[in-house]
């Protein structure tokens, strides 16, 4: 091991030998770097989960283009727009179909006091709007009939078992009875616990201030082979006034994600967390490296007296930085995998580890270790060989 490192470096692996000479401190340093890694991984995990949960309902929509009010930042917060815009869009060549969607929010309270906050989509049962409802839309024509998101948090599994067995489940909301006839899957988000789909008629009767003539979103499907961006531009040109904007669904999603991660507090908090994690990591590594330099000042001074130059000591400190970065990354990433799995199990939000995050955090760790190593070398100037005699 030492012999191999000696051959690779063209010198003794002094940095490695210095680190391993004090095992307890070495272990603490590795865990320190690992902990900093874990901090960054967790914040990136939250951030990534936020971004990916934002995309879940978009993926469920059977649409190429969304038409929303100009004030819409997310899928659910846009003002209602005139239903007439659907007819305007349908008149544009290249548009194959269009469907209105109304958005609402309701609290499902059980007799035991437990509650879930559900985002509600009201769809026209005659038109395709959600891929998962294919072949089951007719059920929604029954008043108060709904499908529930299987990933909804905090729902007793018996309810889904009963739904799978074909037994509708009823619950009350604002004096009206809703009947769950089945389930589909979107997935929970940071803002809601799950989704409910019902007919636009049912939604309007639940929320009396809403109207069938004013949906929140108009889903547009293009004829096969259309350039979606160009079609969206043509729709915008055809829409009168400023009360509606058409965007390709991917563009709408990207806007939503940017909004959630940079405008909403939760995204900003996670972003700050990533920065703080990186900062804590730099401080930990700097502490380790600079105290190591301080501990070896006399030895470095001796080596200076022997004729070694500054670059040699830089090499030693960089060697230590890379060793700490690499060895700290192993426990850091393993702990992150464990906590991701735990979070996924507890929150119902998929917290996943994309390979590029693994690579990015590793490279970031190396850069951060090398940067704090470079900072620590400033103490080397105090290794004055003239003080040795």
């Amino acid at each position, binding site marked *: 091991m030492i012999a191999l490192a000696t051959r690779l470096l*063209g010198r*003794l692996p002094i940095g490695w030998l210095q680190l391993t000479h004090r095992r307890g401190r070495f272990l603490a340093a590795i865990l320190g770097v690992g902990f900093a890694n874990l901090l960054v991984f967790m914040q990136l995990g939250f951030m990534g989960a936020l971004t990916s949960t934002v995309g879940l309902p978009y993926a469920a929509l059977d649409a190429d283009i969304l038409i929303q009010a100009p004030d819409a930042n997310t899928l659910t917060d846009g003002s209602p727009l005139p239903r007439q815009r659907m007819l305007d869009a349908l008149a544009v060549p290249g548009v194959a179909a269009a469907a209105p969607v109304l958005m609402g929010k309701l609290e499902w309270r059980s007799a035991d006091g437990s509650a879930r906050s559900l985002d509600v989509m009201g769809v026209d049962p005659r038109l395709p709007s959600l891929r998962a409802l294919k072949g089951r839309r007719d059920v929604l024509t029954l008043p108060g009939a709904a499908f529930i998101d299987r990933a909804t948090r905090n729902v007793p599994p018996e309810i889904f078992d009963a739904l799978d067995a074909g037994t509708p489940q009823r619950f009350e909301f604002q004096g009206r009875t809703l009947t769950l006839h089945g389930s589909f899957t979107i997935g929970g988000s940071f803002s809601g616990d799950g989704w409910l789909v019902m007919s636009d008629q049912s939604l309007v009767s639940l929320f009396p201030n809403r109207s069938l003539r004013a949906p929140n979103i108009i889903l547009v499907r293009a004829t096969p082979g259309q350039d979606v961006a160009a079609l969206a531009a043509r729709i915008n040109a055809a829409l009168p006034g400023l009360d509606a904007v058409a965007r390709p669904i991917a563009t709408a999603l990207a806007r939503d994600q940017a909004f959630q991660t940079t405008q909403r507090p939760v995204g900003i908090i996670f972003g700050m967390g990533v920065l703080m994690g990186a900062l804590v990591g730099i401080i930990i590594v700097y502490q380790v490296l600079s105290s190591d330099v301080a501990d070896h000042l006399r*030895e470095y001074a*001796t080596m200076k007296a*022997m004729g070694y130059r500054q670059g040699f000591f830089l090499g030693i400190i960089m060697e230590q930085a890379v060793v700490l970065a690499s060895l700290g990354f192993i426990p850091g990433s393993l702990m992150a995998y464990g906590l991701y799995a735990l979070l996924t199990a507890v929150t119902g939000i998929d917290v996943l580890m994309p390979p590029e995050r693994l690579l990015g955090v590793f490279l970031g760790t190396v850069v951060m270790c090398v940067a704090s190593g470079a900072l620590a070398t400033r103490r080397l100037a105090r290794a004055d060989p003239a003080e040795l005699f």
Partner: protein
Amino acid sequence: MEPAITVRGLDHHFGEGEARRQVLFGLDLDIARGALVVLMGASGSGKTTLLTLLGGLRSVQAGSVRVLGREMAGASATALAEARRRMGFIFQAHNLHESLTAVQNVRLALDVHGAVPQAEPAAARALSLVGLEDRLHYHPARLSGGQKQRVAVARALAGSPEIIFADEPTAALDAENGLAVVALLKRLGQARGTTTLMVTHDNRVLDLADRILTMRDGRLMPA
């Protein structure tokens, strides 16, 4: 042949402004190659300052210091480091690297010259010169004071230096070992032409010296 060391009109000051204090006064000195020279004097007489100036560990302020044909006055840090590679230092405190074994410590003196083939066997040979062939892979913490000092001597010798500067090299050794170390330095001077300048208070080794210099209050006493 040019002497190993030539000093002309060497002054040195410490401190700034009001606190500025002269510690060396107009030193002139020639030391022949291969000589074993002992430098004596009370503490504070300037011995150590002279040693650090000759060894290129401190910048020359005034006067001329030529070591191995190279002017040290005005030399850059890089040039001084370069010059030091041809020297060996033995410090009063052994200053071994605690994380390295005896043989690795000695290797450091060889590796400074670039990748040396067979550095480890060469380092082991240097250690056997000082009688430590059975302690090659011991860390300093497991060596006695005398053994550590002998490792430091082996380290100073391993790089085949042309000059050895030693500051009380025998202080940590018993009489027998101390004499053995100085005798070794003497033999090297005769065999390889290595010049040795040694600060010592140890009267037992004076018999081995080719020349004895005495300093008092920053001046060299006439012999």
